[in-house]
């Protein structure tokens, strides 16, 4: 599964994207965030406050309870500031 990061989430993690193999225990977006936090302090820093970072699955906004299923690409990013 491909993970992509944007804006300060990207900067904190220090990469734009990566391929990951998720353990079976990761069912939802929230599980994925918990799993990422354990991967290193850069991830813990990016996700330090619950409810700030947003997620999208295959280009569609999703909430923390959404099952990751067979998503090809999951994105994490701060609240949007376009326009």
């Amino acid at each position, binding site marked *: 599964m491909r993970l992509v990061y*944007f804006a300060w989430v990207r900067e904190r993690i220090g990469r734009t994207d990566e391929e990951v193999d998720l353990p079976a225990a990761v069912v939802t977006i929230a599980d994925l965030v918990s799993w990422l936090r354990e991967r290193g302090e850069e991830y813990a820093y990016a996700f330090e406050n619950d409810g700030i970072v947003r997620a*999208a699955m295959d280009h569609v906004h999703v909430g923390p309870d959404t099952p990751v299923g067979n998503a090809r690409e999951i*994105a994490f990013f701060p609240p*949007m*500031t376009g326009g």
Partner: protein
Amino acid sequence: MRPTIRIQAEPFDSARETDALVAGRPDIGAVVAFTGFCRDEGGRLSALELEHYSGMAEAELARIVETAAARWPLSGATIIHRFGLIRPGEPIVLVLTASCHRREAFEAADFLMDYLKTRAPFWKREHLVDGTLGPWVEAAAKDEDAAGRWPIGP
């Protein structure tokens, strides 16, 4: 209604986009154009840097326009959003809505901007006049409130 949605580094020409929207459509009575500009924030900023999520940005703007088109009888709609480094005074975003009557065009343009601000995957970062990189712009609570004004959301 086939909307025009473009994400580009280049500036846009709102008059040309309006002409394209109304050409051959003598049923259109009203076009509302919203243009968002880069401000200098009292002389503090040298530029705004716009990052976006390519692929999702186009898809999300299409969904936002679809929601507007289901709610108002639009004859046409155009959204152009720039990315990259944008200087104070330069345009960032253009939203055009066309309809037979003005009420629908006004409401749809207002709605599109509110939803674009809170849902389209773009992020702004400040570049300061002293040459340093400023902070990422924080999402405004008032933008979330504004999007909440519309009873039916996407």
